[in-house]
């Protein structure tokens, strides 16, 4: 199949400006069909602007962008016909029932009405909202709205599914339901592209990701690769009590490979966290609490930007 040999997304020096503000500063991205790809970064990193350009609802300022080998400026409609989109802010139709939200949206894709009804029922089932199908959107919780938006985005059986911060603002249980549904789609071969500022989400769902900061890509790889490249195997977290973490930096020098002093804790990067903790105790230091954990993408982000992601 020649169609599948085309990258799902190919961006070169992709730039987006709003007036004088440069939201995306020349990024290169390539996503293969069937891949799960993530844009990880804090708010304002340019993730949403990138996603809107990919979704064909925001013109490219400069650089090139091809979706399924097509230019969004000239083939926007054809591209959008093959995409599923879950925007950051819910834009469900408040004047329609849940079922009608899906049917009407399917009709925008010119899907025959009977087929829309069948797909809508099937998808409401998939996102566990069947029993509320005749209800109104405003009666739904945040997690339910997100699930409905996901169902809506799947009405046209998209080849690529774009999700902008799909689980922001959801409670842990709702997030796990969503992750499970997205994982199933991935297994069905749908290309997933998502933005997130949650490390665990990126680790769970993404085969490959880029870390964005201030409109640029600062690292790229699989979650595992990034952790290996930019962090140690384990991290020792030490808390010395409010305001006194920085004072201990001098006495911790040489423990582990690297130190990171945050407001509320000190992070000691070491391949063996337990022996690093032993060394801390040997030096006569008494932290209020200590924790040895595996490295995460949070550590990668901290290393790359000097800032924490979820602050």
């Amino acid at each position, binding site marked *: 199949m020649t169609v599948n040999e085309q990258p799902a997304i190919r961006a070169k020096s992709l730039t987006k400006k709003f007036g004088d503000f440069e939201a995306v500063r020349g990024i290169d991205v390539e996503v293969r069909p069937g891949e799960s790809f993530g844009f990880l970064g804090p708010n304002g990193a340019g993730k949403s602007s990138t996603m809107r350009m990919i979704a064909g609802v925001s013109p490219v300022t400069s650089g090139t962008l091809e979706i399924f080998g097509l230019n969004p400026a000239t083939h926007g409609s*054809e591209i959008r016909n093959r995409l599923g989109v879950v*925007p950051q*802010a*819910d834009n469900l*139709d408040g004047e*329609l029932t849940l079922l*009608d939200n899906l049917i009407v949206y399917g009709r*925008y894709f*010119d899907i025959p009405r009977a087929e829309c009804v069948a797909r809508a029922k099937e998808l409401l089932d998939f996102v566990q909202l069947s029993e509320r199908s005749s209800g109104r959107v405003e009666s739904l919780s945040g997690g339910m709205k997100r699930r409905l938006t996901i169902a809506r985005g799947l009405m*046209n059986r998209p080849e690529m599914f774009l999700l902008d911060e799909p689980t922001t603002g959801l409670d842990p249980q709702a997030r796990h339901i969503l992750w499970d549904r997205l994982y199933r789609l991935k297994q069905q071969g749908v290309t997933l592209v998502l933005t997130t500022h949650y490390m665990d989400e990126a680790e769970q769902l993404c085969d490959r990701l880029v870390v964005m900061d201030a409109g640029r890509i600062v690292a790229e790889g699989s979650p595992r690769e990034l952790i290996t490249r930019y962090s140690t195997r384990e991290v020792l977290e030490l808390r010395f009590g409010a305001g006194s973490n920085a004072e201990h930096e001098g006495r911790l020098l040489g423990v582990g490979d690297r130190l990171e002093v945050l407001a509320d804790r000190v992070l000691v990067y070491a391949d063996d966290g337990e022996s690093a903790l032993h060394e801390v105790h040997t030096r006569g230091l008494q932290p209020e609490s200590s924790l040895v954990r595996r490295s995460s993408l949070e550590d990668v982000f901290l290393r790359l930007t000097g800032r924490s992601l979820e602050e």
Partner: protein
Amino acid sequence: MSHDTLLWRVAPPILRSARRPQRVVERNAIVYRRTPMVLISGFFEPLFYLLSIRIGFGALVGDVDFAGRSIDYAEFVAPALMASSAMNGAVYDSTMNIFFKLRYSKTYDAMLASPLGAADVALGEIAWAMLRGFVYSISFLVCLAALGMAGSWWILASLPACLLIGLAFASVGMALTTYMRSWADFDWVPAITLPLFLFSATFYPLSSYGGLAWIVQLSPLYHGVALVRGASLGVASWGMFVHVGVLLALATVGLSVAARRVETLLLK
């Protein structure tokens, strides 16, 4: 939309990018399927005017000369009120409703994520507003018939004219609505439609305006009233081409501006 029709070839470029505006109409139809009466809430105003004229006013005024014949005053005013009802329906829908969808409910953002584009949104919404105006006109016509004031079968010829009035006012209404910043701006809507309603040769012939007749002719509704009145009284004239031309031109400009503005506001 077929790509070889005359309409297609004369349409402004942005409108030619439309694919299936009828889906936007379909969406609105599903919304109003539940509350059909809301659709005709605004048609009562011209009806009340009609009743007031029939009950007393008409007797005071007597007959009016129109196109060389003498007609009953109520017969003179009724077509103008029908034209106004088409305007009202189209304006109601293309101002408040569209503002809400544009600025608050994000209905259009969802449409634009699908294969639909800005031109589909503009064409679809304007077509819907036009149809709403048409529903007003038909309801008004039914009332006329029930009151025994429908006159001849010629009145049916005025229905296409009502559609055209709805199209022109819906287009201009939506175009202006895209420039509105807050609900307070909507105070201007009656400030525009009320004088149009009163001074479009609605209640007295153009000749009564004397030297100010040219101002009346600037009113889009004047052209609509002239068309509906001519059609319903079975009086054809070359001037009707001018009236049709004015309304079509307004519709084309309004549609293009509306589509362009939806693009500027939402596809950033």
